[in-house]
């Protein structure tokens, strides 16, 4: 799943090392096409089931993954997603880090607001995704790229 093209770092961000000591696995998938979004949904669902997330939490995580994967393709010009497994000693979690080398998000605060869109969508992707997960972080620099991190912990 990781090929030569995706092994180069698209966008240098501290989020790549978020909870590094608690990370127990990482798989990287490429995000270029509509079909890639469906592939990410499937892989995320499998991981969510594997750590025993409830059906509602699985659905929330997969839906957030779908929104963010689409953003990476539509606004970031494509990129990749790192699927991470976490174990913080007390609980297991699934983490996703979406990375692109696109134009960046000029104003993160307004991008997080419901209804804000530059792409003709509903403007629910970023803010909506944040509500569906336990941890959410964004790092973006103009003309360098964007990274969006989400984690869902098993309750």
């Amino acid at each position, binding site marked *: 799943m990781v090929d030569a093209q995706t092994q180069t770092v698209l966008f240098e961000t501290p989020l790549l090392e978020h909870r590094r000591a608690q990370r127990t696995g990482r798989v990287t998938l490429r995000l270029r*096409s*509509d*079909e890639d*979004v*469906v592939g990410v*949904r*499937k892989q995320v*669902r499998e991981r969510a089931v594997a750590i025993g997330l409830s*059906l*509602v939490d*699985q*659905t*929330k995580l*997969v*839906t957030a993954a*779908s*929104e963010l994967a*689409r953003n990476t393709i539509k606004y970031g010009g494509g990129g990749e997603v790192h699927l991470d497994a976490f174990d913080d000693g007390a609980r297991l979690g699934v983490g996703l880090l979406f990375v692109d080398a696109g134009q960046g998000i000029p104003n993160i605060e307004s991008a997080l607001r*419901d209804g804000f869109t530059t792409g003709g*969508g*509903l403007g*629910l*992707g970023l*803010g*909506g*995704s944040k*509500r*569906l997960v336990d941890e959410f972080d964004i790092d973006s620099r103009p003309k360098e790229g964007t990274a969006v991190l989400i984690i869902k912990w098993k309750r």
Partner: protein
Amino acid sequence: MERIPILRMGDLLLVTIQVDMHDRLAMQLQDDLTQRIVSDSAKGVLIDISALDLVDSFIGRMISNTAAMARVLDARTVVVGMQPAVAITLVELGLTLHGVQTALNVEKGMALLGKSYR
């Protein structure tokens, strides 16, 4: 090309979405349904999403748009069978499927569209 099949029953169109749709496939379904409402003079559209384990903002928008297009073409749309986990997620995401009629299952959806289904 890959397509979601649309069945006709009297003046109703029935769609059961059973695959995880990518965005182009969802747009294709919206276009196909709108065309078929006109070509089949359909009065109602019933969309069964009981097999869908995810409705994100794109699919949600496709459903809302389809219902709106059907309305201006003098047809009603009912969406049936949404899974509870999907409903919870949709609302937290911020999507309300404004203007879309829903029913718990196909039978109740048919009743809403004014058909007895026995």
